[in-house]
């Protein structure tokens, strides 16, 4: 097994990109990443593309080939391209495939892309419901906000989490998003913005929910030993972990604990030979505010039931003990589902290079990501450090 490094990263502005097509998004992020990595097309051995549901969002399957073609790797170079799907964890999983391809020795320079074009379709709620158990959750009327709302209901009942503490996750993520020029929402909000927003699925309100977004993000990996041929600031992959769980939320023993996050997190820390206190910042999957609280608990940063208080005390904001989602998270940066896992890695790269601008975590040396598919049936987690 070879050590792997990220040598380049690129992203599009996330948001309602009415003027930009699926393929345009990939091209925009792809060019940015390849220029950043200083890699030529001939040097690229393979491409992995994470997309949750291009088939239902834009009626396009076979998007590995499409993306390769339009970033200039198809016709002349015949570069192999593979689509990867694990609902909202598709991006993180595409990255893990790229790491495996390089680590194994099969390939040297590999691209991991994530993309979703969600605003071309009317009923995105129904498309997203396909990430749950279609026949035994979605057919019963379950939506994604509804499923995470049932996690929140269970959590509040067990641990006494307040509505105000939950709102603070969104307030904090908007504070970070206001400092990220690629974020969909770059405005700060207050607790009352969240508390007075329209109810979606009790207890969750509109400002507890990540938005519908268009966007793409791309990173380039290669063997660590070759990384300095391309860049002076390679970022080392210290751990790549993935874990699974039951497809339906109702089959989990504890709705407020994401078993796959616990398993993937433990595996990642074992691989990296690091402890929780070694992590300087983390990008987690806050598709809904409650998910961020569960994530930082299930990764082992704080005891179960205490993440609300930890957040309320400002510990997850820039300057706190554990900055969480400096990109703005899914809530403020936006959540083009297939792109999110790669965006998290893009953000870690910015931070570890010291290029985080107004949202830079001071002295950032080790960063972690956690990317969730569905209500936790797939979780992908990575740890990165400066090389």
């Amino acid at each position, binding site marked *: 097994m070879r050590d792997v490094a990220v040598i380049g990263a690129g992203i599009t502005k996330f948001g309602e990109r009415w003027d930009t097509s699926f393929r345009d998004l990939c091209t925009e992020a792809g060019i940015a990443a390849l220029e950043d990595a200083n890699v030529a097309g001939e040097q690229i051995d393979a491409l992995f593309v994470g997309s949750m549901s291009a088939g239902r969002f834009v009626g396009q399957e076979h998007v590995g080939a499409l993306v390769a073609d339009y970033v200039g790797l198809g016709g002349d170079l015949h570069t192999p391209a593979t689509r990867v799907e694990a609902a909202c964890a598709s991006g993180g999983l595409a990255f893990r495939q790229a790491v495996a391809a390089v680590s194994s020795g099969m390939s040297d320079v590999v691209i991991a892309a994530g993309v979703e074009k969600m605003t071309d379709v009317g*009923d995105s709620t*129904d498309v997203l419901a396909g990430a749950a158990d279609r026949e035994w959750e979605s057919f019963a009327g379950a939506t994604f906000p509804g499923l995470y709302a049932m996690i929140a209901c269970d959590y509040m009942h067990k641990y006494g989490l307040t509505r105000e503490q939950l709102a603070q996750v969104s307030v904090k993520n908007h504070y970070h998003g206001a400092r990220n020029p690629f974020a969909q929402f770059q405005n700060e909000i207050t607790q009352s913005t969240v508390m007075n927003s329209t109810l979606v699925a009790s207890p*969750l309100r509109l400002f507890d929910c990540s938005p519908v977004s268009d966007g793409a993000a791309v990173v380039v990996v290669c063997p660590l030993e070759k990384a300095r041929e391309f860049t002076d600031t390679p970022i080392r992959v210290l751990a790549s972990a993935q874990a699974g769980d039951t497809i339906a939320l109702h089959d989990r023993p504890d*709705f407020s604990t994401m078993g796959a996050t616990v398993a993937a997190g433990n595996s990642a820390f074992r691989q990296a030979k690091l402890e929780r206190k070694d992590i300087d910042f983390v990008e987690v999957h806050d598709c809904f505010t409650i998910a961020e609280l569960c994530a930082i608990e299930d990764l082992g940063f704080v005891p179960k039931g205490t993440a609300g208080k930890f957040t309320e005390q400002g510990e997850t904001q820039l300057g706190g003990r554990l900055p969480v989602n400096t990109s703005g998270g899914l809530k403020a940066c936006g959540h083009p589902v297939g792109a999110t896992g790669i965006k998290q890695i893009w953000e870690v790269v910015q931070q570890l290079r010291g290029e985080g601008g107004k949202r830079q975590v001071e002295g950032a040396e080790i960063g972690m990501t956690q990317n969730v598919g569905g209500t936790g049936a797939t979780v992908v987690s990575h740890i990165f450090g400066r090389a």
Partner: protein
Amino acid sequence: MSEEPAQPLYRTSSGGPEMTVARFWREIPQRYNMVGTKCDTCGDVFFPPRAICPHCRRDGKIVPCQFSGKGKVLTYSILSAASDQFSALKPYVLAIIELEEGTRVTSHLICEPDEVHIGMPVKSVFRVLDREGSDGIIHYGTKFVPDI
């Protein structure tokens, strides 16, 4: 409180092809009568039915199991926003219900939104789930109501 959609609802609003009726009739025993399965090796019960016991795997012995339809609410949410085919029901209660035999199901719970609470006893009822496609084919199945 709305028990049945007032007008035909279409599942495929986002442009995908309509499903054939087979997707529903192949599950009629489960959807109409709550027939699941049980593993005779470890005693765990499954609804919807599983063909493989996740605990015993190849050592499991799967047999049919009839559920009583009685249970209690473990967690819930009142949905004010829904995908297009459930839009006419808003607001509606979604719940995870633990059946008295031990397994859990996600279901629409037919009751007033302010009536639902954790621990609430409920029982299954036979209802219209929705109507599909331009022909309005009706899907029947199980929902839950308070067990008073």
